[in-house]
């Protein structure tokens, strides 16, 4: 063991709700989110199922214990602003865009988040779980500045970047302050700011959800969003900033390198991991994601090769991890096992 307490890199897997629903009948409908006891039971069933299926590669638990968890998915702030939320048995909850008009956007103000649905519901659940179990694990997903702006304005935001920058700035201001208040709530309520985003970040970081930044250029990021992400970074500099990024991070790396107090970046498949490590430096932990398409449709040999490639490109390994999330029904068990085994065998910390 070394000073970080591990002798190999972490490689986690995460299954999409349809995998649990179709294999085990575990539902992720509205009840999962709105009834904390249903969620505790579901988490027990998940741990048990994973152990039975993948216990030989270290997943799940032979004797699972109840975990009092708060989780909402990426819908809370959109719902507070009025987005319709769609719940399904076998999917993550989804906020439908509001597609607000110019006038409606310019009238937007930061809502009274803590006294709005569904925050009122989450607050009740946190109190319930704390009183019954003495603790609560997790936090409310804050979403990210552009993610939230897109839910409110729709795709028109991308046209606004060119034709209505004043509207953009007003909208992004409102979104940033809303996200900041959500982080503030999380740190007071549960002490974490990353758990509902990714299991790979230090839970204590304030991790921004930048799924949609993959769709814009670095120029747009630096001109419109960097300032707001840095505002979050400064507000939580005592814990540090994390960024979750879907898809390739390559084009916005110059912008991310300008983020203050950055401690962690999660990059999607297709990213140049070596370049990411070089640009951000060894003090910024990186989690690289494996494509769920490869995990589902690729051969075990292809998965093994991808894990080895990421390990080769990801050094120094004491601040590098890998995960394969969004694994849907039909993903071969063997691909999950080979990914875990390859990381255990080739991801030894201190060997490169």
């Amino acid at each position, binding site marked *: 063991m070394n000073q970080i307490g591990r002798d190999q890199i972490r490689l986690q897997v995460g299954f*999409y709700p*349809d995998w649990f629903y179709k294999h085990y009948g575990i539902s992720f409908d509205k009840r999962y989110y709105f009834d904390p006891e249903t969620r505790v039971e579901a988490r027990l069933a998940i741990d048990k199922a994973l152990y039975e299926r993948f216990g030989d590669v270290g997943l799940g638990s032979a004797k699972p214990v109840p975990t009092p968890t708060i989780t909402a998915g990426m819908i809370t702030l959109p719902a507070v602003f009025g987005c319709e939320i*769609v719940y*399904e048995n*076998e*999917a993550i909850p*989804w906020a*439908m*865009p509001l597609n607000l008009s110019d006038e409606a956007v310019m009238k937007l103000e930061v809502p009274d988040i803590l006294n709005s649905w569904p925050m009122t519901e989450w607050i009740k659940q946190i109190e319930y779980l704390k009183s019954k179990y003495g603790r609560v694990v997790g936090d409310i997903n804050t979403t990210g500045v552009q993610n939230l702006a897109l839910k409110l304005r729709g*795709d028109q935001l*991308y*046209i606004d*970047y*060119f*034709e209505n920058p004043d509207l953009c700035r007003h909208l992004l201001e409102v979104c940033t302050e809303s996200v900041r208040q959500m982080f503030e709530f999380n740190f007071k309520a549960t002490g974490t700011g990353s758990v509902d985003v990714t299991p790979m970040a230090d839970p204590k970081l304030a991790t921004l959800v930048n799924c949609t930044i993959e*769709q*814009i*250029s670095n120029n*747009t990021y630096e001109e419109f969003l960097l300032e707001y992400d840095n505002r979050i970074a400064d507000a939580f500099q005592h814990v540090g900033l994390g960024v979750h990024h879907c*898809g*390739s991070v*390559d*084009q916005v790396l110059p912008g991310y390198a300008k983020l203050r107090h950055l401690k962690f970046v999660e990059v999607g498949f297709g990213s140049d991991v070596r370049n990411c490590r070089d640009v951000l430096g060894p003090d910024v932990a990186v989690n690289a994601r494996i494509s*769920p*398409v490869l995990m*589902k*449709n690729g051969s075990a040999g292809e998965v093994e090769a991808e894990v080895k490639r990421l390990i080769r490109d990801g050094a120094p390994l004491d601040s590098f991890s890998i995960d394969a999330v*969004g694994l*849907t*029904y*039909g*993903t071969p068990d063997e691909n999950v096992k080979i990914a875990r085994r390859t990381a255990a065998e080739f991801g030894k910390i201190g060997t490169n």
Partner: protein
Amino acid sequence: MNLDALTEAVVKGKRKDAVELTQQAIRDGHDPEKIINTYLIPGLNRVGERFQKREIFVPEMMISAKTMQACVELLKPLIAKDTAPALGVIVIGTVFGDLHDIGKNLVKLLLESSGFKVVDLGENVPSQKFVEAARLHDASVVGLSSLLTTGDPYVEETVKAIKASDVGAKVRIICGGAALTPKFVEGQCGADAYAKDAADGVNKIKKLLEIAV
């Protein structure tokens, strides 16, 4: 008047400049069809190429397509109906179980800018709705979008439902989205084409319909 500036305005997404240049070209008596075919379409094609090379991203692509659309709207009434290009009807939607829309919306915008009529079925669309819409609108092509691998069975189901229906012999099917691969789309599902991204989708649709790219 040098209309190369119009092409550049489309490439750079300068909607106001492009509209003024188009209005000037109309006043100067330029042939509306020639303006579209010689200056606007090549501009949008260049934008598509830059998008595929990741030199530009979704907002740049959208503003260029909107720029082109604004110009075409000015020119359309000037083109005699009997000579107006009728490129065909494309029915598009995101497959059942998937609520993502940005890729599908981008394809729609590019197709409309290129002169197609687009029937957008939205997201989470069951297979039979694609069949019914293809029949109702006499579609030339049906386009399926799928971001998540949860959509794989629904992509396959939809392709097979269309192929087995009364419109199956006539309509061509194209599928795209992050979850899909050419092997799955063309090999396993039996669709006519796979699209790597929105720009590729428009090019492939033109090829399926034997329209010059």
